[in-house]
């Protein structure tokens, strides 16, 4: 399984920039578990930047264990399954939380096996 650093630093590569035009947000990943860490994701003018630590006041806070975030972004487990199981929690406007889930080209499990 890749490290949380590898996964978070790869987010700009799977980011759907065209979907985020005009959707400027600061999102904090506040993670525990195997690799406790904080990451600030800034979406501004359709560009995603990733910084380690909490560098700005966030509008949406995502908490959970690092391994679950890795599972989410690598397509191992669907995001909604993790949210419904309360393994990942999102604190902030519900619409932002839902929109956040639509911003990524997450590989599907079937695609990974082919």
């Amino acid at each position: 399984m890749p490290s949380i650093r590898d996964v978070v630093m790869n987010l700009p590569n799977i980011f759907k920039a065209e979907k985020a035009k005009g959707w400027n947000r600061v999102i904090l990943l506040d993670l525990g578990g195997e690799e406790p860490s904080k990451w600030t994701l800034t979406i501004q003018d359709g560009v995603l930047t990733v910084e380690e630590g909490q560098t700005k006041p966030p509008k949406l806070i995502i908490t959970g264990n690092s391994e679950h975030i890795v599972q989410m972004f690598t397509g191992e487990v669907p995001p909604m399954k993790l949210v419904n199981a309360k393994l990942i929690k999102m604190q902030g406007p519900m619409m932002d939380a839902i929109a956040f889930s639509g911003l990524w080209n997450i590989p599907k499990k079937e695609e990974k096996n082919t």
Partner: protein
Amino acid sequence: MNTGILAYGVALPKYRIEAQEIWRVWKNISPHFFDMLSIGERGVLGPEEDTLTLANEAARQALGRSGLEPQKIGAVVLGSGTSPYATKAAATVLIDTLGLPASALTADVQCADKSGSTALWMVAAMIEAGLIEYGLVVAADTINRHTAPGMIVEYVASAAAVAFILGKEQPIARLEAYATHNHDQNDYFRTEGERYIQAGAGFYGWVANWGLLDHVVPAGQALFAQTGLTPADFAKFAVPQKTGVRPLMTMGKLGLDVMQVLPYVLTHQIGDCGAAGVPLSLAHILDFAEPGERIGVLDYGAGAGCDAWSLVCTEAISERRPQSGLVIEQLEDKIMVDYATMLKFEQKMIQSPHRLSNFY
């Protein structure tokens, strides 16, 4: 259709209040609802601000962006459910403030939150019929001024104005198709002589949105049936957004995709802007739209009806895209106030809401 939007303008109140600040005073809802309903901040009127001043500001920006001589405007229609006047048209004031010709057809259109959308299509029909060359339509509302202190809707009651210059010559977005569905239902209303809007079916829960679904679903389905288009043919949608629940319900019932809708919902930043709400979302979409993109508009007027329409961006949008005064810039340009200041600015601590000034 050959008619389209040549330019648009937006005006938002600079003053804002946080929902948490309102909750500090009233504590009349569980704060857990704020995230669920995507409630964050809402607009507060300045001491001298009303539907007309916001409409004037938006129209001035739209005219400036269009580069059109004001004398060429053939119709001025203000869509609003909160006109400062009970009898005469408020739009006539825009004739004077903007230097528009007295020969322009001038009227107000009132149809709850879809007043602006309905006004737009009436003016578009005049242009399409060849009666006029250009028209100015303004959707403006001050829901905050007409919401009683302590009412649950106070958390989102806001204000804004969005103006559109319509014409056939090189529009940035061409109007494509239109459908509507109207019947009377007991949703939000305000009867003669009353200042404050009443909620016919409450604020949250399924029942609070029955009017929405009974109007938006048939209107949206009629648009798809009439055009042969499916939701997948659209790049983006501007949808009703009194709270965050309405976009989700609209999206779910009409089969729209999350990313066609949610990035353009501004409820958390500005609240419910009434007749200007969906047009504000449309303006936000147009700020970043690309040529060829088809945009869907679903504009629900509480208890009155829903207009569903589509427009397609042209090549001209690349050249004439606004370079300043974007919706997100105006959203971020704000001054936060406390509850008492809001009451004072929105003239809720005095008897008459129609005073000419705060100073005498």
